[in-house]
């Protein structure tokens, strides 16, 4: 039987279907060495950057934390109150601990999908394993940070998340870099298993740099009556991001929702989509995306809905705001129905800031620029994420912080 490694070796030169093709040899594989330490002992600049992507150093605010810098796992711990409710560890450790994990590894995302998945197999640099145990309701978020401290580094993580039956949790993942890092490549594989009656809200925030490339590859399987909510936010300039995560609604009455907020500035090339495959009776899916393009940014906002069973329903809503004549937004909504009972719909709208809205706010005393930034911030309103109030406020804070600088 061919191994994952064999398959990866065959795919290592295979370009991805979408996004600029990257020369993998241009990135360094020599990370800085980091010793494990408590989060609060990390340098202040690291903690500040982490905070911007939703990562708290105060452990009371998180049920469990995982922190990786470059290729080293420097922290992983479950808060006392959540022992025996959740597990968090490096993916390598988890694969050694649980034999059954092998059957979940490279099962949703294919190892030979393209050169980036292949790279993640052949040059694998940790990543996290998070498991919410059966019937456990985890009331405060878990967090995972993937941080790059070395310029031009290539970091390849492979994460695996299991929400056991009847469990409920929220995970914040922040991917970011040190302020001195200009270039680099982050490849992140994430496989999600959402078991029967489980509910998982996964919020990922990316903060990269103008010459940095990122190629996340994610897939989720959602079982009977389970719910998966995936929130994605990217607000900083980037050289290129290309990702097209897929959720398989495998179980009856399973639910999935993707919410994306993208602010593209500088020369960013951002190709972000979401795919939903409705495979069972009663499945529901929704994709909501907000894209703002300014400067010379190019944003491709994709959405793909596929109905394979009757009595299923999914909707795709894509809104784009263009703030510069040199920017571009390309909305690509795709619907595929293979049966008569799958109800699929989409709406897409791209426009500039409405003069009428600006004037209305000016008639409430705001200056023109205040009115415009209010509209832009409103456009990126995280309440579309449908998060619990406290988590929403936290993420809104992150967004405000970034938006303040961006606008």
């Amino acid at each position, binding site marked *: 039987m061919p191994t994952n490694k064999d398959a990866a070796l065959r795919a290592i030169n295979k370009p991805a279907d979408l996004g600029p093709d990257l020369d993998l040899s241009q990135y360094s594989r020599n990370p800085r060495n980091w010793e494990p330490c408590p989060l609060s002992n990390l340098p202040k600049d690291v903690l500040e950057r982490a905070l911007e992507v939703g990562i708290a150093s105060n452990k009371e605010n998180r049920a469990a934390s995982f922190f990786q810098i470059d290729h080293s796992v420097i922290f992983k711990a479950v808060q006392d109150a959540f022992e025996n409710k959740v597990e968090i560890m490096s993916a390598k450790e988890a694969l050694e601990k649980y034999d059954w994990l092998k059957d979940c590894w490279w099962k949703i995302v294919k190892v030979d999908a393209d050169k980036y998945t292949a790279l993640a197999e052949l040059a694998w640099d940790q990543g996290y394993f998070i498991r919410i145990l059966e019937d456990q309701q985890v009331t405060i978020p878990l967090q995972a940070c993937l941080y790059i401290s070395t310029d031009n580094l290539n970091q390849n993580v492979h994460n695996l998340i299991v929400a056991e039956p009847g469990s409920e949790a929220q995970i914040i993942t922040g991917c970011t870099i040190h302020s001195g890092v200009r270039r680099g490549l982050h490849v992140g594989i994430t496989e999600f298993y959402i078991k029967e009656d489980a509910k998982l809200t996964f919020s990922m925030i990316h903060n990269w740099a103008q010459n940095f490339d990122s190629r996340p590859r994610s897939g989720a399987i959602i079982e009977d009556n389970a719910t998966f909510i995936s929130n994605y936010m990217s607000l900083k300039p980037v050289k290129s991001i290309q990702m097209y995560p897929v959720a398989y609604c495998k179980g009856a009455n399973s639910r999935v929702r993707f919410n994306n907020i993208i602010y593209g500035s500088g020369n960013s090339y951002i190709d972000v989509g979401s795919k939903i495959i409705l495979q069972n009776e009663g499945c529901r899916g929704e994709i909501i995306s907000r894209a703002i393009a300014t400067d010379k940014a190019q944003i491709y906002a994709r959405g793909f809905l596929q109905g394979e069973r009757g009595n299923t329903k999914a909707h795709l809503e894509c809104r784009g705001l263009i703030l510069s004549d040199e920017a571009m937004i390309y909305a690509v909504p795709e619907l595929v129905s293979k049966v008569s009972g799958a109800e699929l719909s989409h709406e897409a709208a791209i426009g500039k800031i*409405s003069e*009428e*809205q600006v*004037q*209305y*706010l*000016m*008639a*409430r*005393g*705001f*200056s*023109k620029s205040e*009115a415009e930034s*209010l*509209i832009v*911030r*409103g*456009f*990126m*309103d995280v*309440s579309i994420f449908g998060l619990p109030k406290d988590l929403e406020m936290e993420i809104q804070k992150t967004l405000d912080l970034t938006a303040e600088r961006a606008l």
Partner: protein
Amino acid sequence: MPRNILEIENLSVEVSGKRILDDVNLQIPNGEVHVLFGPNGSGKSSLIMTILGFPSFKIISGRIIFNGVDITDLPINERVNLGINVAFQNPPSIRGVKLGGILNRLTPDKEKINELLMKLKFPPEFLERDINLGFSGGEVKKSEVLQVLAHGGKFIILDEPDSGVDVMNLRILGGIIKEELQGRSALIITHLGVILQYINAHMAHVLINGTIACSDSPTKILGQILNEGYTWCEKCLRTRTQRCEL
């Protein structure tokens, strides 16, 4: 304090090259409430947009003096900050911009907002809603009146506060407008004058084809309009024009 809160002198306005206001003259003394009548399309809302300074309403001639200051060339927000507050007839909805956020800008006084919400019978949940998004006709009016009263400027303009509102809400709006307008200066636009059941106005003007056709006591003008419709005013305007031409 100048005698007039608002003086409009020989104001002519075009939108996309089309004349929509023609030699309008209007004075509203401090502390008076005036009413502006007019048929649909006569230029009532255009006059408001021009007073506020909306850029697509291009002033061809004339000027606007507010509280002694020539505001003809000021940007919208500066006029508002001088004390002009408008409750719009059809305001746009804005995703992600909360009513509460706008109110916080208009006044730091939370108690005042709560008091107004109570008087308007407007549920506080609306503060968390995206402004005007999915609001009913009555809710839009309440939200507009709430914003205007929260700011508490010197001069209030209400653009058809009585259109598209059911009797119940009209009574609520009429009551609070009456109360809040005590001793203040205001211009109220109305098509059919329903709001006048609740408000005592000092003077009424009729706008026909972009110009003020006549000015008189509100009860007298409303009576004529209710009896004869705006044809009476059109006749009146014709007479005046002819007189002018003679």
